[in-house]
């Protein structure tokens, strides 16, 4: 017996996990929690306004003016030229669609699986979806050049009998993204209703009127809760296949073309895994920013939440690597002349470093850091990992779009792509994303207070032997 006791290493008291470290086991009176959420919305320092002003300036100049310049001068001022007709605008489009998977899809999966640690950060993630899709849409409009003709995509009878061609993957894309945008926005709004009602109850004057309109008359009766819960469940289950379809169709924009590097049967799931990787990697970045800059957020967003996202990232990174290798090995083994030339170009051409950067950021970084719990629970490190993975995923999209378009079956057309006005517009889209987020943080409660309170209600600490064991009861 004593030999067994000796063999088992014992944790020192200070190393043992305190159940109170978990938000669900550290409840506070609901009124106080609501006050904290409201405080975080209403407290804005001069730093906040400085950042917002700078972002607004960047949006006006880099997005507004540069786009005006693009429209007035035409697509000739971009780097798009034969054979690379899809440049950074399309890279941005794929990237932002990927980021959009961070919120709605992640939130839906966690909700369906009843992962309790999701509760405080689902909205932070869902907001990213809405703003990312806005940016994805803008990127397509920029790429269109003649943006004022965008309505030609809408199927309606017109005098010229011009109808959309449903044979085209671009049209499928339009349908899928429209569906995803509408459904994600509704899915964001549904769980917001009770929190908007809470803000309404604690506001005065025109602010109260504003939230009264947004809260649409919600009181919290049994019928209202039942309807809300059922609608949220329908959305959570239905939006998962829609999100998968969106990025699969984005992949088909490429894969349906019979050209080296693109025509691959695994492009759909490969793109979905990539979207999940970049999207989920964006979550710790935003969580870190919200936690460090907004009042009271350290109570809601704890190391355990970074831990949850870290585990997801590690698994998704492995899935991405699996699909990438699948895509790579088949084209490599196939021995097709043009595939060989393309692979050589990507790995040893003038931008060879992009390929290594992609592998480093998407595989080496997460696999070497995210296996350790202590590191997963370090917010700044998780934010850094998130940034690096996003750099890796942006690079991957850059390789897929302009780099792979450079090499085709007509060598006399080979021509390197150099982005021009696209760089400015890309900076503008990133600034717009942040600006929308900063604005939303003042208008909407970033923490779903009622969901946190509902979760805390269902969690208890059971005493088993000498330990207090966290337990969750079935509450929904």
């Amino acid at each position, binding site marked *: 017996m004593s030999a067994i006791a000796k063999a088992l290493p014992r944790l020192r008291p200070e190393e043992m996990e305190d159940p109170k470290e978990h938000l669900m086991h550290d409840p506070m*009176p*609901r*009124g106080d929690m*609501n006050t904290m959420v409201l405080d975080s919305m209403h407290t804005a320092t001069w730093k906040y306004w400085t950042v917002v002003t700078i972002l607004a300036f960047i949006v006006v100049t880099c997005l507004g003016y540069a786009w005006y310049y693009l429209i007035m001068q035409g697509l000739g001022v971009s780097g798009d030229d034969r054979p690379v007709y899809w440049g950074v605008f399309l890279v941005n489009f794929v990237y932002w669609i990927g980021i959009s998977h961070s919120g709605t899809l992640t939130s839906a999966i966690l909700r369906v699986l009843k992962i309790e640690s999701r509760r405080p950060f689902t909205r932070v993630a869902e907001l990213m979806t809405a703003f990312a899709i806005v940016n994805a849409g803008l990127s397509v409009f920029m790429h269109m050049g003649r943006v004022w003709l965008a309505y030609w995509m809408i*199927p309606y*009878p017109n005098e010229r*009998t*011009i*109808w*959309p*061609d*449903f*044979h085209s993957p671009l049209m*499928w894309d339009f349908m*899928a993204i*429209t*569906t995803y945008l*509408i*459904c994600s926005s*509704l*899915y964001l709004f*549904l769980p917001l209703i*009770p929190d908007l*009602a*809470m803000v*309404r*109850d*604690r506001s005065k004057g025109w602010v109260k009127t504003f939230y*009264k*309109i947004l*809260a*649409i*008359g*919600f*009181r*919290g*009766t*049994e*019928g*209202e*809760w*039942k*309807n*809300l*819960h*059922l*609608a949220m469940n*329908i*959305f959570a289950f*239905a*939006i998962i*296949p*829609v999100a998968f379809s969106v990025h699969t*169709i984005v992949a088909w924009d490429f894969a349906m073309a019979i050209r080296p590097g693109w025509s691959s049967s695994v492009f759909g799931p490969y793109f979905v895994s990539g979207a999940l990787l970049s999207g989920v990697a964006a979550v710790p970045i935003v969580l870190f920013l919200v936690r460090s800059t907004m009042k009271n957020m350290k109570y809601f967003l704890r190391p355990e939440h970074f831990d949850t996202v870290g585990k997801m990232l590690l698994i998704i990174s492995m899935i991405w690597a699996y699909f990438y290798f699948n895509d790579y090995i088949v084209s490599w083994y196939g021995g097709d002349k043009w595939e060989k030339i393309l692979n050589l170009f990507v790995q040893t051409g003038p931008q060879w470093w992009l390929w290594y950067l992609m592998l480093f950021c998407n595989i080496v970084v997460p696999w070497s850091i995210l296996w350790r719990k202590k590191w997963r629970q370090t917010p700044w490190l998780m934010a850094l990992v998130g940034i690096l993975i996003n750099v890796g995923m942006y690079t991957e999209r850059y390789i897929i779009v302009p780099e792979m378009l450079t090499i085709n079956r007509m060598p006399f057309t080979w021509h390197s792509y150099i982005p021009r006005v696209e760089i400015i517009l890309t900076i503008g889209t990133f600034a717009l994303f942040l600006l929308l987020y900063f604005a939303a943080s003042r208008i909407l409660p970033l923490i779903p207070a*009622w969901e946190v*309170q*509902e979760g805390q*209600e269902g969690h208890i600490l059971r005493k088993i032997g000498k330990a207090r064991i966290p337990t969750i009861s079935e*509450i*929904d």
Partner: protein
Amino acid sequence: MSVSNTLLAVFEDIEPAADGIHKLHELGVADENMNVISGIPIRPAILERPSAVTRVGQIALAGAFLGLLLAVFFVWGIPYLFPLDAGGQPVYPWPQLLIIIFEMTMLGLMGFAFLGMLVDSGFPSYTPKEYVPDISDGRIAVLFSCPKDEQKKFVDALTKLGAKSVEPAEARQL
């Protein structure tokens, strides 16, 4: 038949609210004459209440069907009106049409789930309603009807069980 009065009892927590509802049952208040208003969803069984009836599921299914019909119009009606020869493919290529049908059906399903939630809950509504703002801070309100001449009996019973206030329900602007 005596005239009935609607009262609003406010409780601090779930336990006294559950006891209060049990007492109301004992005093002869039927479930359909009662409603619970809370800041977080509470399982009906916890409060000894029947599950609320909802039509959101049926409305969502109807929406999915409408979405399907619209998709059918898009993928068959539009090529019929304006046939396009694209890459030697048939005018009605099944694999591609399934994509549009899937997207539109899901849009109909979720769009109508949202509309169903609005319609079944009577949203948006900006008319005065029986409510106290404390509910969003954790209080639980029980709205019930009782005979006017027995009002005192109900008030006393619920106050004894821990109700913070039991008052005639007054519709007010939210």
